[in-house]
């Protein structure tokens, strides 16, 4: 199933054009062909084909239980595929930011230690994080948090630390799972600006899972609507028309 294949019939040729223009003259960072995965006997999603290019923000939207997070975990290499294949650009550097970490909140691990572990720096001498000026740490205001414990940070501060760690690995593709759920990440506006800066300045491809349709609408270059399968894809102003979303959510009411 190619991008835009489930658009309304009158919009088909337009959508196809847009898809061709999107792919023109640049190689993909990541492409999946008919992948499926799940937990236990049940498939969380199936027949998913999508592409992410460099220098674009791609969003994955859909109701609860649509398989968005599972799909992202699959692309990050956490969950094995059942079917299909994933092609990656040669030597692709990918960073994944989970919705939340499952770590023991009472474990006394400091931000500097966390960064040392994530970035493969000397764990017993975490002073490097203060001496070196790491761009992503400064950009996200993490340098003032280095001696604090992860467990005592606020939700927003913690999210910023995780994002800074993900970015410090200098990824070409960033996988973000619900980066702005109810946290004071940076303030919504600053978050938009950050993502666009990463896209335009650093040429990152960003694949974003989000419930926040408003955010997705003005942040994304391309949107996939997922409900166990890809039901629609295209630029946000086409996929995210109210009538289409309503129809899609109605046709596939979320399970449970």
């Amino acid at each position, binding site marked *: 199933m190619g991008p835009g294949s489930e658009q309304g019939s009158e919009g088909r040729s337009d959508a196809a054009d847009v898809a061709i223009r999107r792919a023109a003259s640049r190689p993909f960072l990541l492409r999946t062909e008919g992948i499926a995965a799940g937990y236990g006997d049940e498939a969380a999603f199936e027949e998913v084909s999508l592409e992410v290019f460099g220098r674009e923000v791609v969003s994955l939207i859909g109701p609860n239980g649509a398989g968005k997070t599972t799909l992202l975990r699959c692309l990050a290499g*956490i969950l094995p595929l059942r079917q299909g294949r994933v092609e990656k650009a040669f030597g692709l550097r990918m960073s994944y930011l989970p919705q939340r970490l*499952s770590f023991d909140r*009472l*474990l006394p691990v400091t931000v500097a230690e966390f960064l040392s572990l994530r970035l493969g720096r000397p764990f*017993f001498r975490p002073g490097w994080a203060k001496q070196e000026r790491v761009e992503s740490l400064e950009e996200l205001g993490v340098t003032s948090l280095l001696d604090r414990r992860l467990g005592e940070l*606020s939700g927003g501060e913690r999210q910023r630390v995780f994002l800074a760690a993900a970015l410090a690995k200098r990824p070409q593709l960033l996988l973000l799972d619900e980066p702005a759920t109810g946290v004071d990440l940076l303030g919504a506006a600053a978050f938009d600006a950050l993502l666009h800066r990463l896209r335009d300045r650093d040429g990152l491809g960003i694949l974003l899972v989000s419930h926040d349709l408003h955010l997705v609408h003005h942040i994304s270059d391309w949107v996939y609507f997922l409900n166990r399968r890809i039901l629609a894809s295209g630029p946000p102003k086409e996929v995210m028309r109210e009538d289409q979303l309503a129809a899609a959510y109605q046709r596939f009411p979320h399970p449970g």
Partner: protein
Amino acid sequence: MDFLSYDFLRRALSAAALAGPVCGFLGVFLTARGMAFFSDALAHTAITGVALGLLAEGAVEFWFGFALPPGLPSGLLILWCLGAAWLMASLFESARWRPDTVMAFCFTGSVAFGVLVLGKLGRYGFLEETLFGDINANSWGDVAVLGAVTMSAVIVLGRRLREFLLILLDEDLALADGIPVRRLNRILVLLVAAVVAIALKLLGALLVSALLVVPAAAARLVAPNLRLLLVFAGIGGFLGSVGGVILSFYLDLPTGPTIVLTQLALLLIALGLQPLLGHRRRSQSRGSAEATTSQSIWPSSESR
């Protein structure tokens, strides 16, 4: 230092000095991952291992007329514990039962079987030593085996410390970083098994898990960061077990219980020290209270 003139005490002290720090260190991983009961269950399954060791010793002596070299029965015990740990870990993954169910039937089964074998061998009196430990139990051969296990545990943990710690923080992130999480989890389980097996003779099956759990729990109270948590847990394990052996000698107390109570005394000291380090905690923000309560079913101290 007159106690060093006794050979049995030198053996016990060497065993304590070797097993204590490694147990404390491993305990950090165990407690952070909710595996404290696992070490306890494993220690109980070891009773069968002890019984089988005695059986092998008796059988060899009866059929072939020579005694097994010292240290071989504890080698057998280690193998048994490794096997039991591997089996339990596999059953956890098969997801047919919940982990605590698996542990419950594995350890009750092993205790039952072990006691049966001991009874048949006419070595029922050996049970007390197996359950509560004995200062005299470790031969120099055992201490050598203990040293070898300790060394390999230190090497494995030291080489892959970063990976183990990343898994401790979040398995998903570790997987996304390409760390072989499943394999390292298995290695951790096997390390715990080996360490439980070697510390068993000194502390006994009922008490050995305290050596893993208590130093890490105490270190958590006072350690400002993860590096010092690891260091403190190791030091606590050393002090508690060596101190416990010395105390049990001077006060003529059973060794295993004395070590455990010494460890617990260290825990209480850490608890007393905690308010003195309170300045570290004052900077806690609202976020922490919410995060703590979500982890635990008990109300946290902040919300009370």
